């Protein structure tokens, strides 16, 4: 890729607020595009958009404040906002729900937060081709309420299902709980309108895009413009693939008296080739011990319940029943004990909405403490799940020995595909955010780096779901991607010559001549 003759990366890389005169000039420029109620400058509106669910030291929140937020209602408005920002060299941070766990929506350098939530229209439901075209500010829950009127369903199902938005799913290339049946966000989004960092509008999809699900024409650009965590622009309007709303659901939970049998059973369920199989989840001993403290479903379980497996099926009732019998027989062969209908149905229904779960942890002497939830994930091949799990628990145990700020809440391994090849493997860590001082934060960042290194050492990807641009794991991105990371830098520089689009993420400041010390790759 050839460097442009113009100076590149001229956006200031600090995180100090804009000078008042510059802020006034920005607001005046934005008023040529937006109404006053679409430009938010007060402290509450800015603080509400300063963070995401991932824990961060409270005393440093003010480092992540945007200078203002805007609420556009159309692709053209987004394009004009970005053009203004590009001309004024002011950072732009897309915020599509802000439910991500890797800081994608966090303003690292201040600037303008583009909150897409008013772009939540359903533009078209195409019953003949089975597609829907929506603004990216709509949530999957609201979309599915409308689609149900037509017996249709958009099966993108993250643990933040009620509150995450279609645009955020595109920006993170999200992972779905029922992706083993229906595919993940990248499989479900057919095409989308996308505003580039220069303000140009691009339609992204296979070939011509639109409602085409497979094309061999030209480069396959859809994946490039998904999962970039907002660093390559803003998706504004998307066309999605639809399915019949499932007639039936079956979600058995089984108990095991040891992890090894549960692990073997999970693999066998995933490899069975049952067409309605939408996913299997393995709960390890640490997860069961954690649930036994606080979860009404697991507190009463006998002591020999040490690991759990859940499987879920969706489809027509007759095929779910037939597939269900096959999976029950497999579970039986592996020594499973069925946990009963109430737990099976209730726990599965709760998995669509984990962000609403109130959380607390324990000090080492057992006292309850308020904690925030964090989850480190990786995409791990089935054969390596036990080794990765063991190594990750050891890392968190070392942290816990140092401080009550951290609590090991156990691990899940979720099938990513319908063949059982790889698993979203996650360790949940409780963090006492109010006590997260600089030393504890540094220890946590070191632990995150270690967790990522374990994944890479086992030929895993550092993230199946969240992304890997948070402090700690991001340091290993060049190692994971190899030459691919240099291509990332080239693409970033070519599409965002002034580094205005979500700067400070994924080490991409290193693409520019004035990169911050410590983020440059030389």
């Amino acid at each position, binding site marked *: 890729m050839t460097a442009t003759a113009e100076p590149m990366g001229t956006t200031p890389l600090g995180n100090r607020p804009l000078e008042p005169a510059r802020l006034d000039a920005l607001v005046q420029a934005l008023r040529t595009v937006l109404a006053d109620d679409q430009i938010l400058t007060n402290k509450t509106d800015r603080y509400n958009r300063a963070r995401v669910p991932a824990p961060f030291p409270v005393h440093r929140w003010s480092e992540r404040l945007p200078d203002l937020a805007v609420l556009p209602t159309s692709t053209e408005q987004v394009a004009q906002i970005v053009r203004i920002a590009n001309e004024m060299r002011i950072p732009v941070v897309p915020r599509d729900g802000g439910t991500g766990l890797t800081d994608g929506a966090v303003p690292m350098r201040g600037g303008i937060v583009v909150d897409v939530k008013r772009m939540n229209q359903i533009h078209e439901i195409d019953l003949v081709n089975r597609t829907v075209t929506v603004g990216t500010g709509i949530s999957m829950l609201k979309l599915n309420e409308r689609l149900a009127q037509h017996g249709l369903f958009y099966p993108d199902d993250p643990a933040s299902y009620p509150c995450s938005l279609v645009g955020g799913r595109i920006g993170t290339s999200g992972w779905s709980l029922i992706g083993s049946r229906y595919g993940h966000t990248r499989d479900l989004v057919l095409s989308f309108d996308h505003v580039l960092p220069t303000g140009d509008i691009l339609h992204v999809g296979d070939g011509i895009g639109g409602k085409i699900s497979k094309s061999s024409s030209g480069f396959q650009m859809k994946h490039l413009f998904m999962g970039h965590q907002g660093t390559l622009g803003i998706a504004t309007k998307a066309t999605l693939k639809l399915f019949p709303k499932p007639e039936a659901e079956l979600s058995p939970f089984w108990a095991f008296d040891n992890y090894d049998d549960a692990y073997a059973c999970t693999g066998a369920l995933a490899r069975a080739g049952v067409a309605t199989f939408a996913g299997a989840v393995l709960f390890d001993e640490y997860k069961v011990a954690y649930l036994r403290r606080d979860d009404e479903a697991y507190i009463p379980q006998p002591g020999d319940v040490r690991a759990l497996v859940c499987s879920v099926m969706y489809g027509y009732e007759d095929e779910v029943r037939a597939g269900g019998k096959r999976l029950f027989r497999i579970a039986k062969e592996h020594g499973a004990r069925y946990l009963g209908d109430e737990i099976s149905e209730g726990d599965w229904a709760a998995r669509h909405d984990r962000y609403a779960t109130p959380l607390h942890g324990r000090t080492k002497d057992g006292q309850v403490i*308020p904690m925030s939830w964090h989850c480190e994930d990786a995409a791990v091949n089935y054969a390596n799940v036990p080794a990765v799990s063991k190594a990750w628990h050891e890392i968190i145990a070392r942290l816990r020995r140092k401080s009550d700020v951290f609590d090991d809440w156990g691990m899940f391994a979720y099938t990513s595909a319908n063949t059982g090849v790889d698993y979203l493997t996650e360790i949940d860590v409780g963090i006492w955010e109010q006590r997260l001082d600089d030393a504890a934060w540094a220890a946590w960042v070191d632990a995150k780096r270690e967790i990522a290194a374990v994944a890479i050492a086992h030929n895993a990807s550092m993230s199946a779901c969240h992304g890997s641009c948070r402090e700690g794991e991001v340091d290993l991105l060049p190692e994971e991607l190899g030459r691919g990371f240099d291509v990332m830098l080239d693409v970033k520089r070519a599409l965002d010559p002034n580094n205005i689009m979500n700067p400070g993420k994924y080490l991409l400041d290193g693409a520019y001549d004035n990169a911050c010390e410590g983020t440059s790759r030389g």
Partner: protein
Amino acid sequence: MAEHLPQTPSAPAASAPYRRSEQLTPPPAVPVSEVAQTTFEHVYEVDPRLMQQHVLQQVFPNWDTLRIMRSRADHLQWMHQHFASTVISGSEILAEVEAEAAPAGQPLR
């Protein structure tokens, strides 16, 4: 339709007299594990001895405890209907599998 309502409701109706002392007296707590206890059926609480330093237990009137529990059940039921028209119970499938396996097979524990 009021004539069809039962004379003695099984739980206090919304129009029942509110007596503060009654509301602040939950059923006696029964320990269910080393760290938890139960009061109403299906209502579990952390053992109060573990909530004395950093997070103190709050006093909930009975109606609010039951409201939270029932709201939770409503929410889960809503989620089921949102994702599929019917929920097939695992116990039905298990019974079919066991019936097919009998007499040679061994039932699931």
